[in-house]
């Protein structure tokens, strides 16, 4: 097995006539926390959507664990070990907190129609195990989640919603987790807590690889090993945060604005 868990080769993604991502390549090492940054409309989320199978690139290939996953459907990718969160959390709002996490385990817990109707012992045991596991996972992030497990997901405070989404993604035991702006809408204090939690994830799940899209440069600087910078769908720089933040091309892409802002 190679050191790279994910290899993106020259992908181009197009909507109608518009190229959202053009000829981008990068590699992510196993166990790494990899950041993707860039101004609005740079194509960050589009790349994430391509990796998680929602979009198919027009040209180029994506390899996960050396397997070509270009054009593979999202639900299969989850089974193979890629989980994700969304930019504006996409929780199942009217389902309970617990149900959200249980759904995260979907690929590991098979339950067909026959079993659902004729083998209730199995179903009950399966639910008992899953609930226990879900509660442990939620406790790791915030014990309050367990207390509110039977509440609607939409009733949670904002930060907990984002936590719940990460919980749900982790529930599938992924090897690679894609986080799309996990700190969106959080205040600085909450962001700091989130940074700690993200680091802790690797204690919880050894060898897990993370790709994080972020606006908050402090968070990116604080947690990532390496960073990819995109602008107008093109890769303009790659390296450690310190390296890219001194790259003149990156600085000009942010219109001269400071990256520390």
């Amino acid at each position, binding site marked *: 097995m190679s050191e790279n868990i994910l290899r993106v080769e020259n992908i181009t993604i197009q*909507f*109608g006539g518009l190229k959202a991502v053009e000829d981008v390549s990068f590699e992510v090492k196993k166990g790494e926390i990899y950041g993707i940054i860039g101004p609005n409309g740079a194509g960050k*989320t589009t790349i994430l*959507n391509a990796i998680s199978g*929602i*979009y198919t690139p027009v040209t180029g290939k994506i390899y996960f664990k050396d397997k070509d996953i270009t054009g593979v459907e999202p639900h299969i990718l989850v089974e193979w070990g890629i989980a994700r969160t*969304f930019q504006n959390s996409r929780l199942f709002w009217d389902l309970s907190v617990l149900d959200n996490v249980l759904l995260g385990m979907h690929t590991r817990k098979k339950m067909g129609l026959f079993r659902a109707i004729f083998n209730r012992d199995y179903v009950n045991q399966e639910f008992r195990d899953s609930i226990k596991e879900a509660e442990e996972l939620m406790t790791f992030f915030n014990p309050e989640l367990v207390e509110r497990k039977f509440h609607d997901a939409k009733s949670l405070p904002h930060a907990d919603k984002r936590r719940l989404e990460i919980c749900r993604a982790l529930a599938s035991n992924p090897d690679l987790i894609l986080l799309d702006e996990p700190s969106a809408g959080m205040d600085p204090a909450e962001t700091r807590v989130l940074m700690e939690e993200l680091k802790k994830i690797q204690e919880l799940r050894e060898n897990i690889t993370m790709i994080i899209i972020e606006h908050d440069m402090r968070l990116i600087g604080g947690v990532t090993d390496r960073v990819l910078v995109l602008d107008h769908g093109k890769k303009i720089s790659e390296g450690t945060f310190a390296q890219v933040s001194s790259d003149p091309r990156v600085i000009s892409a942010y219109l001269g604005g400071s990256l520390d802002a």
Partner: protein
Amino acid sequence: MLSTVSQQLLNVIMLGSLYSLVAIGFTLFFGVLDLINFAHGDVFMLGSFVALFLFMTVAFFSGVNFFTVLLLFLITGFIVVIAGLLIYKLTIKPLATSPPLMMLLVTVGVSIFIREGVMLFFPDGASPHPFPKIFPETTYTFLGMNIPAGYIFIIVISIFLVVAMSIFVNKTKLGMSIRATAQDREAALMMGVDIDKTIAVTFIIGSLLAGIGGILNGAYYSTIKYDMGFIAGIKGFSCSVVGGLGNVYGAIVGSFVIAFLETIGAAFLPFGAEYKDVFTFIIVIIFLVIRPSGLMGEKKFEKV
């Protein structure tokens, strides 16, 4: 033989004109609101019954002449527009933030409500009613075709309405706001388009076309019935799907395509007259499955 072909062609043109007046509304609502208005066909039916009711009153006072007929069109148009606006304000607007499922259900409810309302409250509403003769009775013969004068009026009025509508949408500020909203609602909002007003205008145009379409339909077939809106709605919708939902010209093209297939089917296929509606529905299903964007629509991407 030539006369048969040309006569059938005339049938297609008439049917296509009538369908397109309903289909345009569907396509506008879909473009601006992402709404399929199930009640639209019944607004069409309402138009014909309002006209009949007015006619019974107007003719009583002053008899039929050019001015009464013109008045008939104007007042019917006005009432139908009010009905369309009421449907929007009372049932669709309150659901602006609800899931689309709810909007769909509410228009289904409104549709049945109008239909049953006419059946129950119009005098002898369950029976078909003869529609007054509002156009001259002369018949012309041309290339072996039999052309009643009323047909010419129907075609001219349809063309006039469609052209007026397209000038409005393309040349006026309000019309531009409809186009902008249809293309990208959020961008339109940011550009300062009053979305609520735009939607209201859409309902005015759609209802007006459908209501006048109802009168023309009455004049064409000479009888009207409370349940004709359902099939008219389904047909109008079918036409806009085939043409491409959201595209006004697509709706017109779709109307003539469906009219053509129906006429040909009824005239030339064995058992065609019995099964022509089944054919139409199967064609629509095929379009919905294979090419939901229709003949002239653009494929839309879902944003994630």
